[in-house]
């Protein structure tokens, strides 16, 4: 590889990524609570989904399971999932709640249109165990 090839590669990368953006590729959302439950079960071994709450923009969800809670966040056109142990670390956000995952690069997950009390209701059966 010489400098021309390296420069050409960088230009090609930027052009392709720009075209993907221009074509509006990658748009998706967590469509429903049933969708969130399915994704949680598919992503986490042994997870049995029960109740779920989904942010109004479809970008995040919480799913209560057998002893743990799955936190889902839209990651590009797909969904990334983490298993958390209740009680969750939750704080109020401007238009919803933010759940801390404890991972800097995964980041905190904000559910729009969801209240802290909704999260408490979801995790109550698990924290009482």
């Amino acid at each position, binding site marked *: 590889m010489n400098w021309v090839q390296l420069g050409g590669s960088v230009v090609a990368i930027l052009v*392709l990524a720009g075209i993907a*953006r221009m*074509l509006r590729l990658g748009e*998706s959302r967590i469509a429903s609570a049933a969708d969130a439950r399915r994704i949680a079960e*598919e992503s986490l071994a042994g997870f049995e989904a029960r109740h779920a709450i989904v942010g109004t923009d479809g970008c995040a969800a919480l799913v209560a399971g057998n002893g743990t809670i799955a936190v889902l966040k839209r990651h590009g056109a797909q969904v*990334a999932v983490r298993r958390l142990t209740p009680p969750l670390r939750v704080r109020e956000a401007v238009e919803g709640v933010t759940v801390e995952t404890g991972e800097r690069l995964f980041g905190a997950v904000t559910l729009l249109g969801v209240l802290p009390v909704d999260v408490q209701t979801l995790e109550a059966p698990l924290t009482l165990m």
Partner: protein
Amino acid sequence: MKLPDPVSYAVPAFVLLVLAEMLVAWARDRKRYEPKDTLTSLALGTGSTVAGVLTGGFAYAIALWFWQFRLFEIGYAWYWFVVAFVLDDLAYYVFHRSAHRVRWFWASHVIHHSSQHYNLSTALRQTWTGFFSLSFLFRLPLAIIGFPPAMLLFVGGINLIYQFWIHTEVIGRMPRWFEAVMNTPSHHRVHHATNPRYLDSNYAGVFIVWDRMLGTFVPERDDDRPRYGIVRNLGSFNLLWAAFHEWIGIARDLWSAPWRAKLGYLVMPPGWSHDGSRDTSETIKARWRERQEKT
């Protein structure tokens, strides 16, 4: 003998084919591509090429050193290229299987699996740490047999080019005879899938017959669509995290594990832990089978 680098010639075709697949995605299913994911994959690919330039000379010199002790004199006749290509693909199978079953090698290879998308740009998402992980060791037996390192480099390039087109959802299944012998998009989708039934299967590069012969072949099923990525998806498009996260994980485990367990964090399968607190592909499959039996 100086042979051309086939990958350099293929790069423009790679770019055009990615573009064509994007247009198909735009027309059929926009979830197949994601701009940030594509950017990450392509940047990782470029980084991998740069890393290859920086370290490739060392790997080549090591291969040349071993070649001086060769068992046979093998020339540059066309049929030796064919034999080298087939044997190199078998060496690739062994490397690839190790790359999924030994955490040290997985730490380097995981980059290629770290996208949750499966498209032609994923093919270019390649490791930056291949030399560091000693992956070149798997080709050395071919140099010791007597295949010239330049020939091995050439057929390795052809192998890499072949593997580009199988990273797509645009192609369903190829003709039956082709699926029986060659690695195809269908077989390789299975390899990239995290569905429990598909984990740790279809390691082939070009010829799927290696998997069929060695018991690691799993066919794609229409009732279990592949879900792509890794068991614990990154949830981040950070380039450096994608390139080094498993190495960082190994370093943390080596630091905190008791002495008797440290080696295990290097050589045992990904997900292994000395206290059994993490999931390996075996435990995931076992839980999945248990659930299948219940329902």
